[in-house]
């Protein structure tokens, strides 16, 4: 899933260092204006490269960290069918992480470096994953709302100016929309189930609604990099535009479930033809973003623990590959096929 608040941090785009760069940058911008895709071997301004690395890495990290809250329910899924669908979904997210790390690698940074940054706490991931999954209904709410918000964010990225990122997003978006439907179907089953199931669904919606709206990042008035990212066609719509689209699509879905949204101020504005929500509590967002949300420590802790516990395994694989480098066809793989 999940880009968020991409433009709220990081280096300011720098001005060109020399007249030659200025000329190249002008031609680069013309290509973008003609909707040409930029490919890895093409010249690009350093700030464009850095902005993309930061955004793609953040997106990749979000996919990987996002495996944890949902993974929390795989062993407890209520039916075998739900269990396999959930495993497959979490697998998809891991796959998204892999494509995205590969896309970032085309910009000259390695997956290893990016993961080091994540584990050191120097990289961001979507703060939605710092909320806990407390009941089975959270699995429905995440699919419906979090994957739903991710789709809103990501569909425009399929037309992003950077070719490898745009192509990765096309594939990812297809899978995200499947996740969204699965999640909504869980909510529907619960909402039409017993009283206890309905309560479970309502409680999940209460807890996930506001954080989902925050996934689109700070309000446009607070957002620093939107203009440059728009010129580069890395971003095509502002945070608030995307958020509004999500609200307009999602409110009727909640009504269809006959669940209530936890916002007494929510209303339909006939003139604007939009649903208008009450104010978003940005102090909550900032708290979570700064590392003080309910599960920040657990999520990063789990990633670090897995990385540390896996070190001897990765070392073994490297040592084995070294020892057997000379053998045709590469050791264990060849052997396992032959046996």
């Amino acid at each position, binding site marked *: 899933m999940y880009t968020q608040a991409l433009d709220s941090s990081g280096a300011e785009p720098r001005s060109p260092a020399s007249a030659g760069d200025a000329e190249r940058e002008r031609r680069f911008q013309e290509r973008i204006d003609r909707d040409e895709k930029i490919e890895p071997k093409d010249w690009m301004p350093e700030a464009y490269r850095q902005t993309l690395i930061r955004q793609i890495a953040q997106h990749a990290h979000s996919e990987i960290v996002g*495996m944890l809250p949902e*993974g929390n329910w795989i062993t407890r899924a209520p039916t*075998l069918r739900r269990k*396999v669908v959930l495993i497959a979904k979490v697998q998809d997210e*891991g796959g998204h992480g892999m494509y995205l790390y590969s896309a970032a690698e085309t910009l000259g940074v390695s997956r290893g470096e990016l993961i080091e940054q994540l584990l050191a706490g120097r990289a961001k991931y979507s703060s939605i994953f710092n909320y806990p999954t407390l009941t089975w209904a959270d699995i429905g709410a995440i699919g419906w709302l979090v994957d739903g918000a991710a789709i809103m964010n990501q569909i425009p990225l399929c037309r992003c100016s950077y070719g490898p990122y745009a192509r990765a997003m096309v594939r990812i978006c297809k899978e995200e929309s499947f996740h969204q439907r699965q999640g909504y179907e869980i909510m529907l089953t619960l909402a039409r189930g017993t009283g206890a199931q309905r309560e479970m669904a309502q409680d999940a919606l209460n807890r996930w609604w506001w954080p989902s709206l925050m996934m689109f990042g700070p309000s446009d008035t607070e957002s620093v990099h939107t203009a440059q990212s728009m010129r580069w066609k890395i971003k095509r719509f502002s945070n608030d535009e995307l958020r509004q689209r999500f609200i307009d699509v999602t409110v009727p879905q909640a009504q269809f479930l006959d669940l209530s949204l936890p916002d007494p101020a929510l209303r339909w504005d006939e003139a604007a033809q939009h649903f208008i929500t009450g104010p978003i509590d940005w102090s909550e967002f900032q708290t979570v973003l700064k590392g003080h949300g309910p599960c920040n420590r657990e999520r990063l802790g789990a990633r670090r623990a*897995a990385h540390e*516990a*896996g070190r001897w395994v990765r070392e073994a*694989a490297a040592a084995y590959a070294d020892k057997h480098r000379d053998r045709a066809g590469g050791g264990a793989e060849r*052997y396992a096929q032959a046996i």
Partner: protein
Amino acid sequence: MSAAAESALPAAGEDHPRYVLRLADTSLVLGQRLCEWVGHAPALEEDLALGNIALDLIGQARLLLAHAGRIEGRGREEDQLAFLRDAPEFYNVALAEQPNGDFGATIVRQALLDAWQLELYHSLTASADERLAEIAAKALKECRYHWRFSCGWLVRLGDGTAESHARAQEALEALWRFTEELITPDALDVRMASLGIAPPLAVVRARWEARIAAALKEATLRQPSSHHYPWHGKSGVHTEHLGHLLGQMQHLQRTYPGVTW
């Protein structure tokens, strides 16, 4: 299976669904164990591979549970069988329920069981139970892939660093005692074999032993000397671990009986 094929089956009574449940439960319990790895594996590729194997195993379990429920004829469907039986009514081999431990222990457990399922399903493709033979043929393809993964890692860990070798050897020593059950027939195995529903376990034993011996040699691991204790997981007598695994897996179905999910 057609009604004709069904009635052509040798009269196996209670034994037949019980035998199918052994296969189903082994896949289900092992798959459930692998689910615990999702999000926590040593690298992203291994995370995806373990999850894929879990998906296959639970997929096999679903087909086998449905089949067992049908031949049992008491109207129990896959979820009732998976979520509403207690540990003594689970018939998986005890090796499948052993905790994951480190990645080395998971790989050793997986390789021992993959090799066994591979040989067993290979034989079961000729079962007199046509539906079981069909399921075995599908499972066999998956088991080949599982074995490639687990055997490949067994060799890399065994022949990797001193640390990985020591960890793999230690896991092997700890888990080897559960292998006796895989390859030693009990009365039910013998009755099923006499009806042509299951293969004689002696055949599976020979092929399993050869496969494992070759893999351990390539992995530079030492095969422990004897199989030790004859566990009886397949008769419902388990280690302490299964109850906890089921407690977690069955929690929602137990807390909210009879609802639709």
